[in-house]
């Protein structure tokens, strides 16, 4: 009887994991396709993404123009492909920067505890009062439009969220017996952190990387949408959504629609990946 029960439970778990793997494979395929666009976007684009032709403005999808044409007759499919690079590279910079800094601060705070930990935590609490989008807008006000100001600001804004998660995971890791054993053997704190603790919490770090990517992308593209970041004619996806706004009112939503599909696919895939890696390690961050 009990063997049967175990078998049933086992099978249920396997099926669940199978469904999860399917989602993971789908996400991988989407992200791989986006990565190809980032590297080769403007090369594989069938037409010049900036070639204006007013005679074919605002056409719907057709074989000649898969995603239709925009208000000045540019091929939307080519523009979306060419736009992958500016849309993805900024968020990657934010994710790598914030995760790197956050891991450094989080592990250091967990290791030192005491005054420096308290100081770091206080500092973080003040940073929390500035949502990423507000910080990015203030940075643009100070440094001017372009990609630099919002990328730097969003890196800083996302760092404390990563640091908080990493700190809690590192604290838990620190209390495990293997750390005490290594300390007794005379290994330095630095060696223990780099050689043992970091590899053991790497899953959480990867999950934070993917999650920060999605938050960075949402905020950065919002800045571009608002016209404060990347400037036209660069076909960034946020810029495309904004440019398509007038065409929507004329009954041709294609530019906004297809750029949106690429944005949402990327974010959903990265979120699913992060959830799979980090399970419950998600945290509240402002979204725009």
């Amino acid at each position, binding site marked *: 009887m009990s063997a049967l029960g175990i078998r049933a439970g086992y099978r249920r778990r396997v099926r669940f994991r199978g469904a999860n793997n399917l989602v993971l494979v789908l996400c991988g395929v989407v992200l791989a396709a986006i990565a190809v666009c980032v590297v080769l976007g403007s090369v594989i684009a069938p037409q010049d993404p900036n070639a204006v032709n007013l005679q074919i403005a605002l056409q719907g999808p057709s074989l000649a123009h898969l995603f239709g044409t925009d208000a000045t007759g540019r091929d939307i499919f080519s523009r979306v492909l060419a736009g992958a690079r500016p849309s993805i590279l900024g968020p990657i910079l934010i994710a790598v920067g914030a995760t790197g800094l956050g891991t450094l601060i989080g592990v250091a705070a967990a290791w030192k505890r005491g005054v420096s930990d308290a100081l770091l935590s206080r500092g973080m*609490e003040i940073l929390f009062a*500035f949502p990423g989008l507000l910080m990015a*807008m203030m940075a643009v*006000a100070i440094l001017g439009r372009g990609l630099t100001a919002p990328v730097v600001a969003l890196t800083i804004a996302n760092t404390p969220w990563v640091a908080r998660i990493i700190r809690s995971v590192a604290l838990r890791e620190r209390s495990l017996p293997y750390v005490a054993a290594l300390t007794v053997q005379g290994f330095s704190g630095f060696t223990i952190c780099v050689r043992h603790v970091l590899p053991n919490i790497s899953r959480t770090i990867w999950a934070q990387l993917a999650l920060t990517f999605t938050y960075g992308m949402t905020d950065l593209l*919002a800045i571009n949408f608002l016209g404060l970041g990347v400037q036209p004619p660069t076909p960034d996806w946020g810029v495309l959504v904004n440019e398509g706004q007038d065409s929507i009112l004329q009954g041709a*939503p294609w530019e*906004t629609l297809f750029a*949106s599909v690429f944005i949402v696919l990327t974010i959903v895939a990265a979120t699913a990946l992060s959830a799979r890696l980090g399970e419950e390690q998600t945290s509240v961050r*402002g979204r725009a």
Partner: protein
Amino acid sequence: MHGVVVVLVASVVIFGSLFLAPGSPITALTAGRPVDAHTRALLEARYDLNAPFVVQYVHWLGHAVRGDFGTSYVESESVTAVMAPRIATTLILVTMCSLLVIVAGMLSGAVAALKRGPIGTAIVVAEAIGLGVPTFVASLLLIAIFSVQLHWFPVFGSGSGFIDEVWHLTLPSVALALGSVAYIGRLTQASVEGELRKEHVTTATARGLPRGRVIRRHVLRNAAIPVTTASGIVIAYLVVGAAVVETAFSLNGLGSLLVSSIAQDDFPVIQAVSLVAVLAFVVIGFVVDVICARLDPRITLE
């Protein structure tokens, strides 16, 4: 007390940003427009530009506390006069949006946790999509579907009169709320599921309490605490997210004012709106602490 510290530090950062901008503070304040000697002297006196930073800051803060943020260089009016007519729009927008987040988010999450099967699955899938749609994308898609195709809602503007204004702000608040509803929904679901597994719930059921009572008194009340804390942060961040929807829907609110001020380098307005956003964050945080203390007597306010 802690909130006051946050606002003070934030005000130093916001004031200091004037000095981080390239060029002199005068260039930042006047957006690089040529100024005559008289205006320059007025500005120097107004901001104490020749005094040390600390004196300048205290001077600025003293004015700011009394609601005086200087003059907008784009509108040639006091910053307060520029902001005043726009406060109502943002306030209604954020209030409607918060209600949506709290009601729809908590309801969908609780239903997903308590009712398994197709309804629960549908909610989980909808949440996954809602989390992936940025506000600006949601805004334009809602305009395309409900305003342009179906003609159910107006495309632009804030409307006049309260009822009309609520009508005009329905789509914007849905667009702004979407991601947060999904997030709070997911969080509520996890919280309720966690609470359902606890021993005190089993005990209550074993004592023979009706299921409805167990859920209401023992599960939902306890599950509400982490969700309330998270809702506070989410709502506080909505104030800034409003900038995106207000721009997308051409509403005259504080958020769209912030965006247009940045585009036109109107520094006094940028400072004032940023400070209001941080202030809102701290006030909402305090309200959340009060609510949590009411929900759980073990939590005390400092």
